[in-house]
């Protein structure tokens, strides 16, 4: 449904229920966990191997004195997605039982504001650029986390399309009865 004047999307409708949202959120949580446990990429040069993880990428910047960009990287790749997934579960699980989580409204508003700041898809492209640059220098071996983070990217965009803001408030109003 689009506005007849400015053609902006007025609202999205979908048939997915709270259960599908919870299922996708749990998968996303598992994928995010995997992405932080396993190495992202390994670099092999003259017999020495170096690996890095998601948090390691932020840590590298921090160690060189760039705490603010390190924080930006950590927030947009790990912490904001984690907050999104956890707070969505916190709000949706009670909703399934026709209850309301304390602080539900404030949490969901924060979630909506933070949505553009979770950037797994941008990170994946950035990783591609870095790997191409490194391939000229040394042997690059993609790690498990690279794949699980790619899957997380899909899960998060799926989650966003199942839980548009309007849909969430419809669920809230439906559970009042």
């Amino acid at each position, binding site marked *: 449904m689009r506005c007849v004047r400015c053609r*902006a999307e007025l609202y999205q409708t979908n048939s997915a229920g709270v259960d599908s949202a919870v299922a996708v959120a749990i998968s996303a949580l598992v994928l995010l966990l995997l992405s932080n446990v396993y190495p992202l990429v390994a670099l092999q040069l003259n017999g020495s191997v170096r690996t*890095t993880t998601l948090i390691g990428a932020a840590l590298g*910047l921090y160690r060189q004195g760039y705490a603010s960009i390190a924080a930006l*990287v950590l927030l947009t790749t790990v912490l904001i997605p984690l907050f999104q997934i956890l707070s969505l579960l916190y709000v949706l699980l009670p909703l399934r039982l026709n209850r309301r989580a304390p602080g539900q409204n404030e949490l*969901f*508003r924060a979630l909506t504001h933070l949505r553009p700041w979770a950037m797994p898809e*941008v990170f994946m492209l950035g*990783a591609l650029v870095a790997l191409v640059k490194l391939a000229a220098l040394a042997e690059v071996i993609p790690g498990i986390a690279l794949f699980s983070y790619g899957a997380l990217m899909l899960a998060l965009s799926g989650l966003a399309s199942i839980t548009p803001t309007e849909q969430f408030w419809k669920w809230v109003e439906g559970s009042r009865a």
Partner: protein
Amino acid sequence: MTTFVMGRTLGLLVCGHCRATVRGIGSRALCPRCGAPIHPRRPHSVATTAALLVSAAVLYVPANLLPVMHTHTFFSDDDDTIMSGVIALLHEGSWPLALLVFVASIVVPLLKLLAMGWLLFAVVRQSPGNALQRSKLFRLVEFIGRWSMLDVYAIALLVSLVQIRSLANIHAGLGALAFGAVVVLTMLAAQSFDERLLWDIPSDG
């Protein structure tokens, strides 16, 4: 032709967060459904957006002139700016990636600064124009903004991976700091701009 009525003429407001339609209420009202503050137009939208945009424009200069990365290898020492990084990718033969980085890191930030500046100017001067086109431009800017973070992530990965004794080391440069700030500031500028202001400009006709 489809017709429309503006909520304001009916004394209706729409909640900026949950999109509930609320019957006309005074200032400082809260949405009865989600509790978010409701305003006919976001307060101080023009001033906030302008402040963020000017800061971003100032930092755009060091972001492009200062090196974002310093590469030390056994054979050479190189400083890379954003543009020289693009050229390096081009020399390595991956022109699709070079084009991608060029668009995400150079075209997008510049487009955001120019487009947002132009839209703000139109609102402040109340200069009549095609509101639909302006609105679409704003939504484009809002949508593509985050993709400029691409280079920041690439730098973060390179910095943390390439620390192999004296053989090869990569260090981040001050340009990366300025560049990251430009991305964040322009994103915040787009978020604080109230798109409806574009439609409040009286048209010529």
